[in-house]
């Protein structure tokens, strides 16, 4: 199966959860759709959603929760299909 790399649209801090006391947007191994939100990137208190970008199975998060990303950095991989 082809692999799709999800990339951060902006530089900033990556969050896997909508709020600290909430479950993650997506778990590893879960089925995702292209327009599904799998995380947030915060830049200067503005939040951008990170979309899966492809239908398939989310194989792994490359970026750790609350880690610092550059624009275009890999966030996760999706097995397309």
């Amino acid at each position: 199966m082809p692999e799709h790399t999800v990339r951060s649209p902006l530089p900033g801090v990556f969050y896997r959860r909508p709020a600290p006391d909430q479950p993650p947007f997506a778990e590893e191994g879960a089925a995702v759709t292209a327009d599904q939100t799998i995380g947030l990137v915060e830049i200067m208190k503005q939040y951008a959603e990170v979309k899966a970008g492809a239908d398939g199975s989310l194989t792994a998060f490359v970026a750790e929760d609350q880690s610092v990303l550059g624009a275009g950095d890999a966030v996760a991989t999706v097995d397309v299909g």
Partner: protein
Amino acid sequence: MQTLLVANRGEIAVRVLRAARELGLRTVAVCSEADVGALHVRMADTHRVVGPAPATRSYLDEDAVVAAALDAGADAVHPGYGFLSERASFAGKVVGAGLTFVGPSPEAIRLMGDKVLARQTAARAGVPTVPGSDGPVATVEEALEVAGSTGFPVAIKAAAGGGGRGIRVVASAEELREALPRVQGEARSAFGNPEVYLERLVQRARHVEVQVFGDGERFVHLGERECSLQRRRQKVVEEAGAPGLPEAVRERMTGAAVALAAEVGYHGAGTVEFLYDPERAEFHFIEMNTRIQVEHPVTEMVTGRDLVREQLTVAAGDPLSFPQEEVRVQGHALEFRLNAEDPDTGFLPSPGTLARLHLPGGPFVRVDSGSEQGGEVPPFYDSLLAKVVVWGDTRETALARARRALDEVEVEGVATTAPFLRRLADHPGFVAGSYHTTSLEEWMTDSSEAGLARRSA
């Protein structure tokens, strides 16, 4: 009080450090790993790194900041604004560690931080509140009954929200029925408290706030500020005083703010926010902020009082250094928030290196900034680069000075809102001083000659 730790960054950390140094205090800065080279760190006598770049793991880490204070031998902590400034739990930890918290008691922070309790306290102090539910509403039936008296549209607000967060406006009973459980659920996850209350939506209202000060026994005000020019509920320009506010309204509003401060035995600097309906000449309490505000310099410019110095001396146990009779407002002041955001791309944040930074100066111009040429604007924190504050003996003089000052701004390396602010300073609605909380966003969609929709290039 001998050694003060400043639990913040950027311009407000610099502002507090200046006041502390003028009082002869030893100073401790905190910073994240991303801010080690920042101006506020160099200005302090010593500093402690409290964590990695993301604010949640550094500036918002209550235990790390308290540990830094103890480690550096601080006996007092100033929280600035934002970050930990209105967290009762943090104030409690500071006090619990045997240190002085520069601000009100944890109880006062908690009381005013809960919007339902704050509203009830205001009502008890005789301060008019926006018509709505007298406490939290639990069920759709209760909410519909309240809406029957307030009318539609009505705002559903999270008790633990504030600053524009946790608010939903509904226009009909049907929408209310659908939205109530959702807003409760969102409030639980966002603020850890599902309680919501209802308030009439006052349209075409102005946001006018009163600066108060207390030492636990005496309570004063330092006049009002007009803060209606907002974009996405974030203030863009503030004024002292509020243009066109009738003197009788000003007197009642400042009196109400002092009454609320007295009701809670307030200690330190606070701001009581009101919605003012110019058509009915009525004002209603919104919330009280238990900290120094971003826009405090406009009040300092028209009163000649150093509010941060007063915070420090009152926290050290001194009585207020001035009675109400000695507070005199002279002239007019304006503050423009210069942000590292690109007005031509929908105000996208613009972090980067400040290859060039020239900020205005000259008579009656004050610039508060934590940035400097060659420094970094990190992507992790808010986008405020500098506050350009001007004073004039009249509003007209202040406006002319503001235009002159904004023309002097030169920034390279990051995009800023300077061109947008400069055009705003010429806008007929702003010049006339007749605007309300949605005016700026209306002007921004106006593509006529007077409007702000045109791109700056």
